[in-house]
């Protein structure tokens, strides 16, 4: 089979790309998409370690399933907040949302 490190390299690269997107993008929806990328990379990691180290113990797949649940909840609440901010400020640029800035 394919060695484990190849999956880990792909997952680490996707996670790093997601981190870059979260830190550098200005659009709130793009930031949420980058967060989804990071969660998906974590899932690839979890399932790869499950397959190669404990293929008969279900904990790896169960954790990946819970990551799916949390990702769905995060996307729903995050996009609701983005729509709510857009309604009150007419903008989705995160730098325009600076009410708490000192």
């Amino acid at each position, binding site marked *: *089979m*394919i*060695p484990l490190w*190849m*999956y*880990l390299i*792909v997952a*680490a*690269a*996707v*996670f790093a790309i*997601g*981190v*870059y*997107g979260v*830190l*550098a*993008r*200005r*659009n709130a*929806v793009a930031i*949420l*998409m*980058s967060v*989804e*990328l990071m969660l*998906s990379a974590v*899932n*690839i990691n979890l*399932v*790869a370690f499950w*397959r*190669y*180290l404990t*293929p008969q113990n*279900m904990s790896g*797949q*169960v954790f*990946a*399933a*819970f990551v*799916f*649940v*949390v*990702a*769905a*909840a*995060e*996307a*729903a*609440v995050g*996009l*609701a907040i983005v*729509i709510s901010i*857009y*309604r009150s400020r007419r*903008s*989705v*640029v995160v*730098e325009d949302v600076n009410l708490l800035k000192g």
Partner: protein
Amino acid sequence: MLEFNPQLIVFFLFAILTLGGALGVVTNRNLIHGAIYLIISLFGGAGLFVLLSAPFLAAVQVLVYIGAIAILIIFAVMLTRSMTSMRELYNRQWWISAVVAVLLFGLLVLGVIGPVWVADEEASQPVSDLVATTQDLGVALVDGNQYVLPFEIASLLLTAAMIGAIVIAREDD
């Protein structure tokens, strides 16, 4: 060391889909295109799940991530008209962010993947060819000795998040 087999070709195909889609998400100015790249990337991840003999998670990836989350993001883009209002793509700290991302990738490769990488050929293969099936996953999720409590809490979390999302996004008059 690596013999050239169909599995490797399929792996590289899905890895390229995953990585290329991810790059498209962070570099694309048009958010609708970005969402389509996100779908491509998640589809590549589903293919990797199939290669890792987790077909149920691959189906969930396609149904939940592509079918629900990506479509939700496209709806949010349309509702906020955010693809036309962007002046610049990145904020002022984009180069610091790039350095941080590259450093993080290097740290992950050196610290986590390095020890697995230098290990001998034997150690980077699965410990067993016997793999738990989807049925085992279903049993584990409802077995009183395993994951039934986290499973119920997860469903409670989803319910709370959906109600919260409706309350937040509702137009208050």
